[in-house]
């Protein structure tokens, strides 16, 4: 196989990579938002519960979660499809990280913002939705973009649950070709082509959010 053929072969896995990513976002975004906000708003035992859920998804090893959810849960009577398991496990893992960014973004906001809202007689919900979240989400958007890239790359694990993504395609081809240099170079290139534009977009957003930051060189 020529380098181009190998490369096109790997791209056949792009559909699964993209699907798992997009479907994963369906889990990641609500989880990150809801649990991030919940962790910000709650105190005491409620906060402990919220934090525990976040930590479970964030700190567990993804490979193990994939395995357990796909191969062990059906024994307990819950058989989710490979796509659902992949999207859920990868999505909630990234969502766990995103929730931390949401919370940090909210906490980093000047306290005066919330107080000004209160002083205007706005309800807590309005303050959260109209004042705090818009600012926090914009401020954290470069982080979210990084986490999106992480999600794309994490899809390389889904072959464990029978999905044929780009990494798995590379493995399939390598068991016909047994020639690691072109295959893994192509795989590197494939991910690079998908993720690098996203990374550049993240840089652009970062500069737009804080134009002063680029100019500022403390060292």
């Amino acid at each position, binding site marked *: 196989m020529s380098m181009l053929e190998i490369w096109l072969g790997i791209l056949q896995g792009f559909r699964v990579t993209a699907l798992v990513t997009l479907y994963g976002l369906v889990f990641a975004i609500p989880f990150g938002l809801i649990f991030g906000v919940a962790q910000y708003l709650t105190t005491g035992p409620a906060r402990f519960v919220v934090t525990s859920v976040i930590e479970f998804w964030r700190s567990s090893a993804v490979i193990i979660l994939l395995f357990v959810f796909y191969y062990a849960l059906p024994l307990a009577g819950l058989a989710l499809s490979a796509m659902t398991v992949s999207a859920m496990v990868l999505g909630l893992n990234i969502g766990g990280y995103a929730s931390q960014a949401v919370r940090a973004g909210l906490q980093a906001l000047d306290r*005066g913002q919330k107080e*000004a809202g*209160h002083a205007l007689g706005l309800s807590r919900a309005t303050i959260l939705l109209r004042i705090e979240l818009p600012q926090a989400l914009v401020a954290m958007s470069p982080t979210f973009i990084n986490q999106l890239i992480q999600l794309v790359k994490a899809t390389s694990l889904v072959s464990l649950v029978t999905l044929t993504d780009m990494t798995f395609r590379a493995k399939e081809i390598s068991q016909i070709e047994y020639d690691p240099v072109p295959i893994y170079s192509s795989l590197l290139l494939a991910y690079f082509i998908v993720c690098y534009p996203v990374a550049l977009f993240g840089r652009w957003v970062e500069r737009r959010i804080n134009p002063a930051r680029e100019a500022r060189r403390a060292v």
Partner: protein
Amino acid sequence: MTQTDDKPAVQITSLNKWYGAFHVLKEVNLTIPSGSRFVICGPSGSGKSTLIRCLNGLEAYQQGTVTLGTIRLGDNARETALARRQTGMVFQSFNLFPHLTVLSNCTLALRRVPSMPRKEAESLARHFLEKVRIPEQADKYPAQLSGGQQQRVAIARALCMNPRLMLFDEPTSALDPEMVKEVLDVMTGLAHDGMTMICVTHEMGFAREVADQVVFMDQGSIVEQASPSAFFATPNHPRARSFLNTLLH
């Protein structure tokens, strides 16, 4: 602006507040008649901000009562919310919403709290922006304004809610010297319109010119309350004397 002249605008009785073990407000009693202008001054950490923040529910307190007009704060959730809406507050650091234009800063609360139609809210907001003399800045974002302009937006934003009482917490101390005057001029204008105002400030020129009463706080207590002329001429309390000394070196 109509005022219920029979009742004082603010009535504070035996107010006590602690931060943990730290007694930050000690038996504060204060009556502020409708339409009057009070200036609160005192050394840093004496509890001025804490006191003024108790008046619109930004701080909880442990003992005593605060009555705004006819409403005693904390008695009834709905009435308390109403009283808070009728109290405008201007902060030292402006606290404008950076992601909204000047106009949206002013209309946000109008559109939400009394659910005013957009058109009406905007024309009201433009009216008050005119009053603080920056109608032409309506479509800019706060970061595009100078400090003095930002603080005037903050005042307009508070005025939009048609407050019976305006609270100012060191509104000029974060400003460049030349911009202080712009903001003080706006505040003086409000005072002349008869707005009830409580203002924490060290601008003694403003106090002298505008205030009905000067309140001096030290270590959580009100130690002196007098008319500006009496206060500046013969401060009774030794702490007030030394404070005025350093201020007017």
